[in-house]
């Protein structure tokens, strides 16, 4: 492998992603787990930059580190035992088998083209800009229906979340 900026970047971001993931599953502390998860997702943002999709990288950081991390921390503080996960919740053998199965399924899905080959022979020459993305979002023949459905989904998520959260509070939770 040639040693250039992209290779170095790839190695660094892989260390972030995998190291963060390893941290999440090994720490006993929920808050530290959140931080490790953010390290991992930061590595994924790096991959997006290497793939010439800086908009997605910014979105990844904005949504995960800016919002999800905060939300998880608030959620963690709603639970009672933040720093001490009880030993009895940890089952190494079933979780190992489960994650191995998931890994094999994903590996199969990526390498074996079931619905025909998705991967182009070479990388496309034209890199879509944010403007193209915006035009596609409101194009009648493009993604306008998914765009509006996303809004419906977000609305439903928010209404549902408020409903459940308020309900729980009414019960004194």
């Amino acid at each position: 492998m040639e040693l250039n900026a992209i290779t170095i970047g790839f190695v660094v971001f892989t260390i972030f992603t995998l190291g963060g993931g390893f941290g999440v599953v090994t720490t006993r502390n929920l808050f530290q787990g959140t931080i490790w998860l953010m390290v991992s997702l930061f590595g994924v943002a790096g991959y997006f930059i290497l793939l010439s999709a800086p908009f997605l990288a910014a979105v990844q950081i904005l949504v995960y580190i800016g919002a999800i991390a905060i939300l998880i921390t608030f959620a963690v503080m709603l639970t009672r035992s933040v720093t001490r996960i009880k030993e009895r919740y940890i089952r190494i053998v079933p979780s190992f088998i489960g994650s191995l199965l998931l890994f094999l399924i994903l590996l199969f899905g990526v390498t074996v083209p079931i619905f025909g080959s998705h991967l182009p022979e070479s990388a496309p020459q034209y890199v879509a800009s944010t403007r193209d993305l915006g035009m596609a979002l409101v194009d009648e023949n493009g993604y306008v229906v998914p765009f509006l459905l996303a809004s419906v989904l977000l609305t439903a998520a928010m209404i549902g979340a408020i409903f459940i959260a308020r309900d729980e509070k009414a019960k004194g939770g």
Partner: protein
Amino acid sequence: MNVLNEWAFIGVFAVMAPVFPALPIVIAWLFRPRKPNVLKSSTYECGVETIGDTWVQFRVQYYIYGLIFLVFDVEMVFLFPWAVAYNEMSLFGFVAGFLFIFLLTDALFYAWKKNALDWK
């Protein structure tokens, strides 16, 4: 400068940025006095000893604000490309964007009516 080179600059910048505040802290570590004692490095709480665990259960209101923010955050992510391409769109582009924002404003008003926006 090509795109990846731009990001190489950001990358070097991101590595250097924590070094600037780390330098004075390291220098301070070389010069500072070290006279720790048990009372000094105990948790500060207006002169009394702290009781119980700090990491206790918090109220649900923080979580609700976090949730509403998350929904708006994802909405804004969609609106950025929309805004960038706005000048090239027809009136339909405005209608699509308007519907998108309008649906989420509904959710905000639902939260408002359910008093989920009040600090309690």
